[in-house]
């Protein structure tokens, strides 16, 4: 059997990004929550918040490490597996990656060291500042990588010259049509992931009565925070992002929404079973006009469907994958709002800590925002196919022609095994940290710290 390096490189990219993308949302969301906890601990002199910050800071350190480890691969993979792509777009695409390293990677990595190890070496003010810089750095990192991705989706600020894309305006390339809605929606998704991680772990600790005084604080905080950010995912960020896709990537929009034939007063699909080829929606139930309204702010606006775009000569993306991924993401997003709404309601009625079933539900929610993130990413990437740079360069023309299928197969197996191992070890280690719970503030030799004799040895 001939091993196809293009297919295998796509598979490897999907695998490595898909796995990597589980961790940055957690660390970005967690970092901002830790900033709030440490702020309250410092400003109010509240020992419980300090303990919460310390405890979740440990989880942040662990999550960050796995994010870094899997992220290193991404910085090099464009060159190793997508050499033709790198040559074609290098004049534009390299700059945001380099900017990410200079403005973000250094900041988050350097200050994480200070945050994790410097608690007793610098003032409380500087220590809090180091947590803030970790959060700012990881957010800037998200910004620059999304700039790079947004440019693939809605390329701008360039001309095709000398057989490649050459930069004509850096500002136009960076702030292309989808940069802001994409960044804000993704950043908000990260905050939701962080909120559920803190809420789930805190609820578990409350139920187990392990460091419950600390965990009640962090639970309360994460529920209120979570309600705000899960609402923001719907409006304005999600709404804005959808409007932008409708305007700038109509093929993706038609596939997302399951619109086969374009029409005025286009209906919003509430239910339907997508069929790939020829594209069809079976048993579709739609609300007339709502899709037109959502997309263009006008009930009577014409929304082009898959068949219209094909008739105009445009390639359309895989239909089922785009449609199902989009609707799973939206469904999960709706669930998040309901769960946080209920939590805040229970909190308001002062029944939260007695409602055991709700507390037991929260830990189970932890993976769901990550699944929503993955599906959102699939909508973005699969919905862009067959283009790697929308209407500029096809995916099939982007891979490294000098790398053999066998070599890529080897690296896929290697990453597959290593990532599976990392995933298991991450969960195992996370569970260990959670079971240990938030420690009292005085040094506790029992938690893996040095025994007094080991301390004296140095």
């Amino acid at each position, binding site marked *: 059997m001939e091993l196809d390096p293009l297919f295998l490189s796509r598979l490897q990219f999907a695998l490595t990004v898909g796995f990597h993308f589980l961790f940055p949302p957690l660390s970005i969301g967690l970092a901002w929550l830790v900033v709030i906890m440490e702020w309250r601990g410092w400003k109010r002199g509240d020992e419980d918040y300090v303990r919460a910050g310390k405890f979740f800071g440990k989880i942040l350190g662990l999550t960050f490490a796995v994010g870094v480890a899997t992220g*290193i691969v991404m910085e090099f993979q464009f060159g190793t597996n997508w050499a033709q792509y790198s040559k074609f777009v290098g004049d534009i695409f390299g700059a945001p*990656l380099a900017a990410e390293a*200079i403005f973000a990677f250094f900041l988050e990595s350097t200050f994480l060291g200070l945050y994790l190890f410097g608690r007793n070496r610098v003032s409380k003010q500087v220590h809090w500042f180091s947590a803030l810089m970790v959060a700012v750095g990881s957010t800037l990192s998200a910004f620059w990588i999304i700039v790079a991705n947004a440019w693939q989706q809605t390329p701008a600020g360039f001309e095709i010259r000398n057989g490649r894309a050459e930069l004509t305006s850096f500002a136009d390339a960076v702030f292309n049509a989808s940069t802001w809605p994409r960044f804000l929606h993704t950043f908000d998704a990260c905050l939701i992931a962080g909120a559920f991680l803190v809420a789930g772990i805190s609820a578990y600790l409350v139920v187990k009565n392990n460091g419950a005084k600390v965990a009640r604080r962090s639970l309360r905080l994460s529920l209120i925070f979570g309600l705000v950010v899960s609402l923001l995912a719907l409006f304005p960020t999600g709404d804005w992002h959808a409007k932008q896709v409708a305007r700038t990537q109509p093929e993706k929009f038609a596939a997302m929404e399951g619109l086969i034939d374009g029409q005025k007063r286009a209906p919003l699909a509430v239910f339907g079973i997508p069929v790939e080829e020829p594209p069809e929606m079976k048993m579709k139930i739609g609300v007339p006009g709502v899709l037109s309204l959502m997309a263009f702010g006008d009930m009577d606006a014409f929304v082009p469907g898959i068949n219209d775009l094909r008739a105009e000569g445009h390639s359309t993306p895989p239909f089922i994958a785009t449609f199902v991924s989009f609707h799973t993401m939206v469904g999960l997003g709706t669930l998040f709002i309901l769960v946080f709404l209920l939590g805040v309601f229970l909190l308001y009625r002062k029944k939260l800590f007695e409602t055991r079933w709700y507390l037991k539900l929260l830990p189970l929610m932890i993976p769901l925002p990550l699944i929503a993130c993955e599906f959102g990413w699939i909508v973005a990437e699969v919905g862009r196919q067959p283009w790697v740079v929308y209407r500029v360069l096809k995916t099939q023309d982007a891979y490294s022609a000098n790398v053999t299928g066998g070599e890529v197969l080897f690296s896929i197996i290697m990453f597959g095994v290593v990532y599976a191992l990392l995933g298991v070890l991450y969960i195992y280690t996370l569970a260990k940290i959670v079971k240990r719970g938030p420690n009292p503030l005085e040094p506790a030799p029992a938690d893996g710290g040095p025994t007094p004799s080991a301390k004296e040895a140095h």
Partner: protein
Amino acid sequence: MDLNTVWFLLIWVLLAGYAVLDGFDLGVGVLHLFARDESERRTNAAAIGPFWDGNEVWLLTGGGALFAAFPIVYATVFSSFYLAFMLLLLALIFRAVSLEFRGQVDCPRWRRAWDLAFGLGSLAPALLVGVAMGNVLRGIPLEADGTAVVPFLSLLNPYALLIGVLTLVMFTMHGAAFLTIKTEGDLQQRMARWTQGAWVVFIILYLGAFAATFFAAPFLFEGVLSNPLFWVFLVLVFVAVVNIPIANRAKKFLRMFLASAAAIAGMMGLAAVCLFPRLVPSSLDPADSLTIYNASSTPRTLTVMLVIAVIGMPVVIGYSAYIYRVFSGKVVVTAEHY
């Protein structure tokens, strides 16, 4: 100096920064394999704990800057060295998580496993970046269209392996020198002896590598002997290398570490001077080499990137220096460490 030359310089500054900074924590990782007991291993981990992550970013920044400024080199070298890069990534993945995992579970076997992962995850990159450097110096079979097919085994030629081992020994020496600053007593003395031992091997390998380069890549020396920069770097390397054992004997460990850092930086400078204006020589036809002109981005991109670097890097260097100052002095192992 034109923009392309400025970027050649900046890329080499980033690579030299990586070699000097991550060099010592990779070296500490190699020495970790030879640590005698748990307290020594904890000291190693604590000594580099606050720094290694930031140090590794120099490599990522070098990769990103290469992509932005010289995309043809980024694409060609990384795809040509495919399997070697995959092994490098594998090592860096394990290294990045090993200290974090190690510290979170209190079980001797768990810790030993991560100690090994950390050690090998440091040894392999030290060796592999040297092998990559060796292959770049002697040139790769670049065709006229700027592509190359390089079988994995051909990367493991004697010259590249020599540069690989040289790099490994050099980083080990650098790591030992770093640990002499961070430790006291017996451990400090042992690290001073490690520095001395590694220095002897380093000298032999370096002289060997220098001579081998005349045979493996004679074109590197064409015209450079009349370049004053070549002699500046050569004198810098000489003075720095001689200073290492002198400082060691005088127990001026900070000076020894700085001398080791200067030697590494000087060697990177020498390599850069010899390569200029090439980035990757072609072993088939010198005319097909990738240079700072035929492999670069447009002047507009180079200008934008220069602005980013000029704004960003001083800030990075500023807060990095601050962090090094905060964590200066001997290692005190506390509960917060790995």
